[in-house]
């Protein structure tokens, strides 16, 4: 009894302070923002940058000469979230994939610029019909315990990956292999998989379909070999430090859950002489601001991302460290074609597509150099160029005029405005994009859209059921550099075809693409397929993703690539240009902006959870870097936000400070 009384006392007391809290919170926030004013930032800026490297000198093999290398070759990589597993066949998500690329080596690997190069296989033959691959393995490749890497290891690895008992989520990567579907379904034993060791160092893989991107799949972790003896000895614990035997450039030395995974150089690796980094620490940071603080303190050399809203500041103070490059992913909104008002209404869909100013959205909303997009397939896939729709060449004023015409033609007007809901899920950018699109539509056409923020899994379910959705956030980041991966999303019956798009001609074209072996013909077919899709307007293209991170300027050997795959074995540290040791900054030089950012983010979420849209806008505006007053025609979407839009928040939603705090979290599973 007594206890209960006290609880109610407590909640009563908390209630009474809510008012105070609401007043105090913004005050404190602005105190904070004021406290870290420009003076302090400028004071820091001079000391904040990292030491310049010496000039890079390469020898004839393209490797750096020893005299330019730093003495200490230990890399601290921010790996974002905790890796889900280090079992290559169970792996999913970026954090696992990054580490596994260092630990293991597949039949193929990738060069620093992302080209497919020989890995454990030194060369291969592909039969004329594209259905038989023969791989010749390196004879000098060893496991980290000294055992030779043989064709049997790959057979065992692929069979394990396909085995229903392994329950690999990514086993679908194996589907082009003969009998893989039947093995996965449990209809055939794993030994029937179309993989065969012809001798100790020759491996043959039989295919169900010719798969032009198959070599790229072989650098994916679900095709990696595993060391049979240690898997059989340790079972599911084989991927722990001390047990894990790997064939890549590094071996697992330590794993502190949710803190750090440490790899050290594998002395038995066939190319160990060319591996320069001796040790790689993968750190886990749930909060990108915290990671940025560590980076600025010199304790991290590579971050997984950068905090949103700090682009201008970072660009100004860390021009050499901030690295932004296109990523193989598209961000778009989908239409539900099975619900009003979008069924059989291409004119209306076109009006909405045209009304959005993509240059404005990428410049003012996403802000990190994302590329405005008019197609589905992002640029950067070798040899493929998307068909660009005609309206992409128009000026925005022309697009808007046409949008207005189409809107009126569809029967809508100021008195009879179009109303629909935009669904999106957690993530700072998702919210901003939805808000901006909504306000642009209102401004250009007078559309009244309602924003609905949904918890991730709820959002996915609603999308899939196609009962509630009208316009929804969508996107795709591909596992392999092939347009088919994107185009296939819109196939009738595809599990992620949440658009309800169905076109038998489109499906037939996709089938043709899948069967076509001659690259130029296949490219032309894909071009036609995408053109058909763009003409049918089931989605609203918005932008192409970019990767954004901070990299220590002394770290070299890596290159930006659309897959964002970076092997530690390619990297090395150069000496600092000055004689003194590389400046490791003291704790005092840690960014104050980081803490400010944290507050802002959490505050936003807190307010978000209470469903007070107006306040959100206010604070988001303060956290935007100030924009110079530009063209009077351009409207800052942040300032034109319709205040009457109501934000509906799922009542059951738990709002944690988001891991990853980025729109990419939505897609975490579609990556790697």
């Amino acid at each position, binding site marked *: 009894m007594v206890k209960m009384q006290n609880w109610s006392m407590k909640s009563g007391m908390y209630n009474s302070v809510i008012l105070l809290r609401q007043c105090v919170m913004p005050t404190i926030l602005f105190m904070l923002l004021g406290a*870290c004013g420009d003076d302090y930032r400028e004071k820091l800026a001079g000391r904040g940058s990292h030491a310049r490297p010496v000039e890079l000198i390469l020898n004839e093999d393209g490797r750096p000469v020893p005299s330019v290398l730093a003495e200490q070759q230990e890399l601290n990589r921010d790996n974002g979230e905790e890796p889900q597993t280090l079992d290559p066949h169970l792996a999913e998500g970026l954090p696992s994939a990054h580490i596994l690329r260092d630990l293991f080596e597949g039949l193929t690997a990738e060069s620093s610029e992302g080209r497919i190069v020989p890995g454990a296989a030194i060369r291969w033959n592909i039969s004329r019909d594209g259905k038989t691959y023969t791989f010749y393995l390196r004879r000098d490749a060893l496991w980290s315990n000294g055992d030779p890497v043989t064709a049997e290891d790959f057979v065992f690895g692929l069979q394990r990956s396909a085995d229903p008992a392994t329950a690999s989520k990514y086993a679908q990567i194996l589907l082009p292999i003969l009998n893989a579907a039947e093995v996965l379904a449990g209809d055939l034993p794993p030994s029937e998989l179309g993989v065969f060791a012809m001798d100790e160092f020759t491996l043959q893989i039989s295919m169900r379909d010719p798969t032009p991107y198959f070599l790229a799949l072989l650098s994916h972790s679900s095709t990696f070999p595993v060391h049979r003896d240690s898997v059989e000895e340790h079972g599911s614990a084989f991927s722990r430090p001390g047990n894990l035997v790997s064939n890549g450039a590094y071996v697992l030395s330590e794993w502190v859950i949710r803190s750090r995974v440490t790899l050290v150089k594998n002395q038995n690796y066939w190319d160990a002489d060319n591996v320069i980094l001796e040790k790689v620490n993968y750190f886990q940071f749930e909060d990108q601001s915290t990671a940025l603080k560590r980076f600025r303190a010199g304790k991290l050399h590579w971050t997984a991302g950068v905090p949103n809203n700090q682009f201008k500041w970072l660009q100004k103070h860390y021009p050499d460290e901030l690295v932004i490059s296109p990523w193989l992913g598209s961000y778009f909104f989908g239409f539900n074609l099975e619900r009003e008002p979008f069924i059989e209404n291409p004119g209306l869909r076109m009006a909405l597509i045209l009304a959005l100013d993509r240059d404005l959205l990428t410049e003012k909303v996403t802000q990190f150099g994302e590329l405005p997009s008019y197609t589905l397939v992002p640029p950067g896939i070798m040899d493929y160029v998307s068909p660009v729709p005609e309206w992409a060449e128009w000026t925005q004023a022309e697009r808007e005029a046409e949008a207005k015409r189409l809107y009126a033609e569809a029967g809508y007007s100021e008195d009879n405005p179009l109303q629909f809901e935009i669904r999106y899920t957690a993530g700072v950018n998702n919210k901003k994009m939805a808000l901006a699109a909504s306000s642009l539509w209102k401004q250009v056409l007078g559309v009244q859209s309602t924003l609905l923020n949904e918890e991730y899994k709820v959002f996915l379910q609603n999308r899939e059921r196609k009962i509630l959705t009208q316009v929804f956030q969508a996107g795709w980041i591909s596992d392999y550099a092939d347009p088919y991966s994107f185009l296939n999303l819109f196939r009738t019956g595809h599990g992620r075809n949440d658009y309800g798009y169905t076109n038998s001609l489109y499906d037939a074209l996709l089938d043709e693409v899948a069967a076509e072996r001659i690259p130029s013909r296949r490219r032309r077919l894909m071009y036609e397929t995408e053109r058909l899709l763009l003409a049918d307007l089931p989605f609203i293209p918005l932008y192409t993703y970019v990767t954004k991170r901070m990299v220590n300027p002394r770290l070299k050997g890596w290159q930006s690539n659309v897959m964002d795959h970076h092997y530690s074995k390619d990297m090395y540290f150069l000496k600092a240009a000055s004689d003194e040791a590389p400046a490791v900054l003291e704790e005092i030089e840690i960014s104050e902006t980081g803490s400010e950012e944290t507050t802002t983010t959490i505050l936003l979420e807190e307010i978000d959870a209470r469903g007070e849209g107006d306040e959100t806008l206010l604070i988001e505006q303060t956290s935007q870097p100030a924009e110079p007053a530009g063209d009077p025609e351009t409207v800052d979407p942040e300032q034109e936000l319709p205040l009457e839009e109501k934000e509906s928040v799922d009542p059951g939603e738990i709002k944690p400070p988001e891991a990853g705090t980025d729109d990419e979290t939505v897609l975490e599973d579609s990556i790697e």
Partner: protein
Amino acid sequence: MIKDSGMARYALWRLAGLIPTLLIMITVAFFLMRVAPGGPFDSEKLLPPDIEANLNARYHMDEPLLQQYFRYLSQVAVLDFGPSIQYKDWTVNELIGQGMRVSLTIGLAAMVLAFVFGTLLGITAALRKNTRVDYSLMGVAMLGISVPNFVIAPVLILLLAVYAGWLPAGGWDWGIASMVLPVVTLSLPVTAYIARLTRGSMIEVMHSNFIRSARAKGLPESLVIRRHALRPALLPVISFLGPATAGMISGSVVIERVFSIPGLGSYFVQGALNRDYTLVMGVVIFYGVLIITLNFIVDMIYAWLDPKVRYDAKS
């Protein structure tokens, strides 16, 4: 002698209530978790039905829900919480064990800090009731309760780590320096709350008849306070300690995130968002046992402090 058996009987009576409480909690959590939309394997990426079937089979999610429930209960009976669905290389037992060490350290340290300072401040304020000391202490305490820790934490980092440079701005290495800021931040609101609680009950106690009697028989004021007033004045604080300690040990998502600490709190939230059924259930049961145990301990202390409770239980 009589007193001891009363205590023991009271303890047994309380312990017997523990099992059904836990059972209800597990049941509710288990089915609520399954009712939530989506499952652990849902993602933007399509899963072929065969692969989904394999995954469900591996975690016994292909069985009827009731069968899963009883399977889970039999596992829990032997303290096996199963493998985590999200963190595949670790069992839930290992994850909770690792997070618990961190959370326990911070939580207990913060609790001790809050209890010591809270009661001291509260008593001081009560004894100087309606003076400037009282008003300023209670004013600060009100601020401590009102200002959320996601504001306090960055302010402290800003002042002590960034400007002064005395402490690290985050991270966890089991060193004292890395614990100071999170512990202080975590303890501040509780300190403030305890101070207010102590002040209130102390003032009430000081007005009661037995204090008047103690004074009347000529005891010096310091003895009146120590021998007669302190015990009853701390009763409400003690009963607050149970849930408060549990709250602190169970970890604070905000503190963990801002200071980058691998504690328990984020398993709860991340686990729920990822629909990591086994992890969430494990954490729920762990919290449940923790809260029940702490409440039990508090009730025992309470019974020891206040004989009325024992007699009620007996009758």
